[in-house]
C-alpha cells in the first residue's frame, strides 16, 4: 500500500549556509495518522515542513538530497498546484495567509485557481465552514476575527482544496487557549475523516492528540520516549 508521506534519506542545506540543517532524515506517515514533530527553535522544523510540502525545492532554493514522496510521487516531479490538491499547509501566522475581504472569498480562492465550477465552489464553502464551525462568519472580514478564528478560516481555505494530507506549521503558536483547543478538536475530526496530519510544534502541551511524537535533533528525527503528561 502507498503511504501518504514517505521521506527517504532527506538532507538539506540552505544556500550560503555552511551546514546541512536536515541530515539523512527518514519518515513514513500512515493514512489517518497524526504525527507531531517537535524540536528546539531554529533546529529545522519549518525547513522539514517546507520539504514535505514541496515549497522546497519549488520556491526556496538550496541543496536538497534524498526524496519526499506524497502518495508515491516525488515532490520534485509534482508542480505546486498538483501538490496543493494532495497536501494543505496551515502556517504559523494567519495574517500572512489571509488576504481577501470576506471569509467566503478567502475560501473560494483555492478552488477558483483550480477552475472548479461555481456551484461546486459554493458547495465546498458551505461544507468547510460547517466543518470548522464558522458558518455565521461567511461574509465577515477575516481581519475582524480573533486569532483562533482566523486560523480556523486559514484551515477552511486549505480544506476547500480537499487535500488528503494536512501540515500544521506551528499553527497554534500565535493563538489563545480557546483557539488552540478548537484547532486540536478540528485535527481530531479530520483524522476521523481519514486525513493524514503532521503537526510541527514546539509547545509540548499541544501534542496529546498525536499518535506519534518525533523529535528533530541534529538534522534527524528520533522517536520521543518521554511522557507528555
Amino acid at each position, binding site marked *: 500500500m502507498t503511504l501518504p508521506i514517505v521521506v527517504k534519506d532527506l538532507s538539506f542545506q540552505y544556500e550560503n549556509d555552511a551546514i546541512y540543517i536536515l541530515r539523512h532524515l527518514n519518515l513514513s506517515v500512515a493514512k489517518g495518522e497524526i504525527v507531531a514533530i517537535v524540536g528546539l527553535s531554529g533546529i529545522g522544523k519549518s525547513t522539514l515542513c517546507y520539504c514535505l*510540502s514541496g*515549497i522546497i525545492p*519549488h*520556491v526556496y532554493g538550496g541543496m536538497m538530497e534524498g526524496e519526499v514522496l506524497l502518495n508515491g510521487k516525488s515532490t520534485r516531479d509534482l*508542480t*505546486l*498546484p498538483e*501538490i*496543493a*490538491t494532495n497536501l*494543505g*499547509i496551515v*502556517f504559523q*501566522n494567519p*495574517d*500572512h*495567509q489571509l*488576504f*481577501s*475581504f*470576506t471569509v*467566503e*472569498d478567502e475560501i*473560494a*480562492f*483555492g*478552488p*477558483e*485557481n*483550480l*477552475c*472548479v*465550477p*461555481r456551484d461546486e*465552489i*459554493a458547495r465546498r*464553502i458551505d461544507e468547510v465552514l460547517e466543518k470548522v464551525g464558522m458558518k455565521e462568519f461567511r461574509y465577515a472580514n477575516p481581519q475582524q476575527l480573533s486569532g483562533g478564528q482566523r486560523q480556523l478560516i486559514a484551515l477552511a*481555505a*486549505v480544506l476547500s*482544496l480537499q487535500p488528503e494530507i494536512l501540515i500544521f506549521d506551528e499553527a497554534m503558536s500565535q493563538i489563545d487557549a480557546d483557539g488552540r483547543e478548537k484547532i486540536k478538536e478540528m485535527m481530531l475530526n479530520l483524522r476521523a475523516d481519514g486525513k493524514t496530519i503532521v503537526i510541527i510544534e514546539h509547545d509540548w502541551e499541544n501534542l496529546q492528540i498525536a499518535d506519534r511524537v518525533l523529535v528533530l535533533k541534529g538534522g534527524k528525527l528520533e522517536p520521543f520516549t518521554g511522557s507528555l503528561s
Partner: protein
Amino acid sequence: MWQAAALDPRTKLFLVLIFSSLAVFIKNVYILLLLLFITLLTVKVIGGDITSIFRKLQRLITVFVAIIVIQSIFTAEGQVILQLVKIKLLTDVGLLRGVQTVLRFFIVIAAAAIMTTANPRDIIQGLIQWKIPYELAFMVTIAIRFLPLLQEEAKDTLTALQLRGVNLKKIPLFKRLKTYSYLLMPLLVSVLMKSRDLSVAMEMRAFRAFPHRTSLRELHFCQADYLVMAVGMVLFLLLLMISVKIN
C-alpha cells in the same frame, strides 16, 4: 426601487474615467465649475460621502495656494495683481490657470469618491471581467488590503522609536529625516517577509495553476447600468463639444 449604490462597479469606474478625462480636456473655468457640480451631484446620488471629499481638500489648501502662486510666477502673460521687487507673484492669467488646476484636482478627487461606494472585491471582479490579467487584479486586492496594516506597522515602529527617547518634534529637520530612515528599514524588512510568506501561502493554494480561473462571483450589467453609461457618454460628448466651441 432602483438603488444607485447597487450599480455595477464597472459603471462607476466608467463614470470616474469620464469625469477625470473631462477635467483634463476642459479649459474653461465655468465649464469646469459645471463639471464639478455634476460630479458632486453624481457622488451624492450614488451614495458617496461628500463631506469626506471636503475634508480631504481641506488638507490640500496649502498645496492649492502654492499651485496658484507657482502658475503665476511661471506665466508671463496677463495683468500683474501682486509683485515683489521684479517677480510677478500673481497675474490674472496665472490666477486663472491656477484656479483651473485646482478645479481639476477637485473634480478628480470627487470622482474618485464614486469608487468608495463599491465593494473592493467587486471592483477586482469587474477588472477581471474586463479581461485585465487576474495577477494584476490580485496585486490591487493585496495593495488595498495591506495598506492599512502597513500604516499600523509604521505607527508601531514610530512609537517604538519614541519610547526609546526620540522626540521627533524637537529634532531639527535634517536629523528628523535621518531618523525616518531608521523607521524605513524595519518596515521594509517586515514588508518583504510578509510578502514572501503571502506568496508561498498563495502558491500552496494553487495560485496561477492555470492561465484562467473560475470565479465564485460574476457581475452582470443591468438596465440602470446601461442607462447611466449612456447618459455619461452623452455628457462627455456634450461638454467636450461646448468646450471646443468656446476655445
